[in-house]
């Protein structure tokens, strides 16, 4: 991909203060690019900093250090007018469809809320737009006068998508948009998101721990462990040949009806360490089955082992 990236995230860090003067390194030195039109996924287990990373990119949390370039422009230094545009063009879909909609607003008002800030329209045009958006996400016009509690989880998630689309965005952070839904509804919502992407040329940052779904939707994937990126690759090579020991263990956990009995799952030892006090050297060294002395002492850098396939491991080439 030689295109100009939409987002360039360089050495991004986001630390939270914890009790007793300690810091939680939620996102610790993460570097990646997001190109226009692609779906970039962040995967990893709970608490690895995926969500924090997505939120920091959109400026929900201020970053601790590093840089976030949006079309070559540092987001923290944008002027008011630029920030206004940034807010319109970059949206977010939330994990919990129950808490992301104001219970005291009707669906119509919810969808209009952000739209009215950025587009000048007459009330009739606004209602028309709401109807159009509701159709677009597979609902009907009569939803506009309902309240969120009258809707099912899948319908609420569609409202969340319609609210984001109302801003006519280029880029949407999808923060585990299907984690709270039934499996049958998950597929519907994902397919809707794929259709919308093709129709409107959207770029997605897709945050998930559902590896099968991520494979289905992603162009490129970043695997996170304890706040750091351990592997970064296009989808196909990553699933065929994961290079990092953590990714290998993670992917061996994907349930598969065709898996032979001989193929054993990799069981990692121990619990995920606390992000307050991560292991020295390679963060995965405390649980890595291949760890050597070097891994405990020296933190590996992200290096390109194969074309477009990056990994943070000293030993990846030999494994």
């Amino acid at each position, binding site marked *: 991909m030689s295109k100009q990236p939409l987002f360039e995230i360089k050495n991004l860090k986001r630390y939270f203060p914890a009790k007793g003067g300690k810091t939680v390194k939620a996102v610790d030195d993460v570097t990646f690019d997001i190109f226009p039109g692609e779906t970039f996924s962040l995967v990893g287990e709970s608490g690895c900093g995926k969500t924090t990373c997505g939120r920091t990119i959109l400026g929900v949390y201020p970053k601790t250090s590093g840089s976030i370039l949006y079309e070559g422009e540092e987001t923290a230094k944008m002027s008011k007018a630029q920030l206004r545009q940034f807010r*319109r063009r970059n949206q977010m879909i939330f994990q919990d469809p129950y808490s992301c909609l104001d219970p005291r607003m009707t669906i119509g008002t919810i969808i209009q809320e952000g739209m009215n800030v950025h587009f000048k329209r007459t009330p009739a045009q606004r209602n028309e737009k709401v109807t159009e958006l509701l159709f677009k996400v597979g609902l009907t016009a009569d939803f506009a006068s309902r*309240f969120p509690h009258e809707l099912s989880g899948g319908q609420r998630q569609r409202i969340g998508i319609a609210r984001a689309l109302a801003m006519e965005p280029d880029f949407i952070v999808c923060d585990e948009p299907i984690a709270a839904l039934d499996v049958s509804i998950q597929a519907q919502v994902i397919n809707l998101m794929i259709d919308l992407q093709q129709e409107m040329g959207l770029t997605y940052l897709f945050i998930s721990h559902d590896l099968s779904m991520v494979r289905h939707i992603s162009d490129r994937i970043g695997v996170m462990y304890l706040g750091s990126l351990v592997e970064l690759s296009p989808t196909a090579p990553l699933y065929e040949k994961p290079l990092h020991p953590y990714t290998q263990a993670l992917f061996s956990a994907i349930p598969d009806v065709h898996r032979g009995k001989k193929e054993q799952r990799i069981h990692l030892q121990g619990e995920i360490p606390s992000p307050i006090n991560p292991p020295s050297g390679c963060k995965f060294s405390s649980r890595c089955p291949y760890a050597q002395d070097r891994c405990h002492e020296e933190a590996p850098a992200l290096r390109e082992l194969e074309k477009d396939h990056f990994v943070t491991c000293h030993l990846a080439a030999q494994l």
Partner: protein
Amino acid sequence: MNENAVNSIQEQALDPKDFQIQGADTASAELFARKPVTYWRDAWRRFFENKLAVVALCLLIVITLCTIFVPIFSSHSISAHDLLNRKQWPSAQHWFGTDDLGRDLFVRVWAGGRVSIIIGVLGAAIVAVVGCIYGGIAAYFGGKVDMLMMRIVEILSSVPNLLVVIMMSVVLESSSIPTLLFAMTVTGWCPIARLVRSQMLQISRSEYVMAARLMGVSPLKIVVRHMIPNTFSVIIVAVTFRIPGLIFGEAFLSNVGLGVQPPNTSWGALSSAAQSSLLYYPYMMFFPALLIALTMLSFTLMGDGLRDALDPKLRR
């Protein structure tokens, strides 16, 4: 099913015409849709669908109007003694009878209601305003300010309420309405402050506020559209439920002799005066007690109705 039947079904050509929806299309669904309504209008409608709450509201309006107009237009005066007509049972002349100094109880009960209702409503208003400001400041600044302010609230609310009220009345050595109000609201705002703070914190960290921020909605609009409606409904209900407590508090204070002093009166003072002759003249106790009960009940029922109306989850 035998094999032939299966084959014959498969052989039949499937025609897309057989799978068209008859009668209903998405466009006509709009015809059945409810008219779009705003939150407040919807709440208003739901309140008026609740018959018990509407009856309570009407009763409160009638009681309030009576307390205002009966003492003005009645031929009897609150303080005019008529020693020839002492302790008269209710009659056409004196609807609620007369007390031991021959004063007309009908007028006195309504005049006494003024004090009770003013204390109830004004007290609740003071509690609400102070509680909102205090709780709002604590939630807004957070951190150490919040910590300190909430510890103060905890200390204040751990002191028994009536003890504070009695001490205040004794120390201030006056029993006017402002004193009573001050005594009863001096710690009364604490629960409201807590409520406002917790509600504000919860809402400001909710995902819908985050979504609004990310869409570039201004902080002022977020406060007006999300914070206030979501906090306000909770406060309205809490405050409505406080009014009966305040009315009862006043009645209690007057009953133990720390409230309103004669010739002015209140429902509590009236029932207190009636206590000594309860066995022989129960009507003297009956009417003020009835009105205390009715008013408190009405406020409670109205609070119930408001709570149901302001919570869209209970929408039918």
